[in-house]
């Protein structure tokens, strides 16, 4: 089993994988914000329906 080196090539490899993880986390965070906004819209809609009744 090869060991993971912490030299210059290892730093480049780590940088590439960190970029991927950061991209994924940012995407999920943006998605979570959008989902929260959608939930808020849904709550307002439910309130409007209740008021009308």
């Amino acid at each position, binding site marked *: *089993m*090869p060991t*993971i*080196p912490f030299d*210059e*090539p*290892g730093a*480049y*490899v780590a*940088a*590439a*994988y960190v*970029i*991927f993880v950061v*991209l*994924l986390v940012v*995407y999920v965070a943006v*998605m979570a914000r*959008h*989902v929260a906004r*959608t939930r808020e*819209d*849904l709550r*307002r*809609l439910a309130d*409007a*329906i209740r008021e*009308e009744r």
Partner: protein
Amino acid sequence: MSGSRLPHLGAVTAAALGTAFAMVFFYAPVDADQGFVQKIFYLHVPLGIVALGGFVAGGVMAAQFMRTRDRRWDLRSYVAIHLSLILSVGVLATGSVWAKASWGHWWVWSEPTLVSFLVVFLLYSCYQPLRFAIEDPDRQARAAAAFAVMAGAFVPLNFAAVRLADAVTHPRVLGATGGQMPVAMRLTFVVAMLAMALLYVLLWRLELMRKTTAIEIAALRRALEQRATTPVPSIAASPLRPSPH
């Protein structure tokens, strides 16, 4: 796939990504030519293939929209292209890191593979400004579909042209002449490819579900507002009311 299956898809995707990364670092041998830096290949290449595949899929979905005029296809195409654009940022960034580690430069303008991917990325960067510059939803969908179909057809043509080009600084790991990967490397690559494809499908489904829900909520709100402003006819005045006589 219904929304109830998404958690299963999420679990399978997480397991596949975990397995792929474990195989990259603890199973696949270190490349004799490039050394440890070659490990970037298992991330960069699947990302690139999935991103380009997503662009083509977006074009196919747009063609379906043009054929059926069903707005759901337009939304699917939009989400596929949007997601591929995000993955393309990852392809360019990881590719630059690999280029710096292998060739000593962050970017090589004389290399057709790099430049052609940048061209595809810049082409699709125009998709959203074009789309949202048009206010009328029908015209917007038609223009976006025309763009997606043409750009989607350009992607494989571009890929083929690059393969025929002479300059080959960029490794040809999956070509007819450069595919002599050991079994362990090939297996790791296949698992990484599968994991990336699953991730794309998962994110596509999630985003599609969120956008569909938001559209449905907006439609319901409009219907509610319309009902509130339209006077409800009295039952007494209704012509359908049975006559007392």
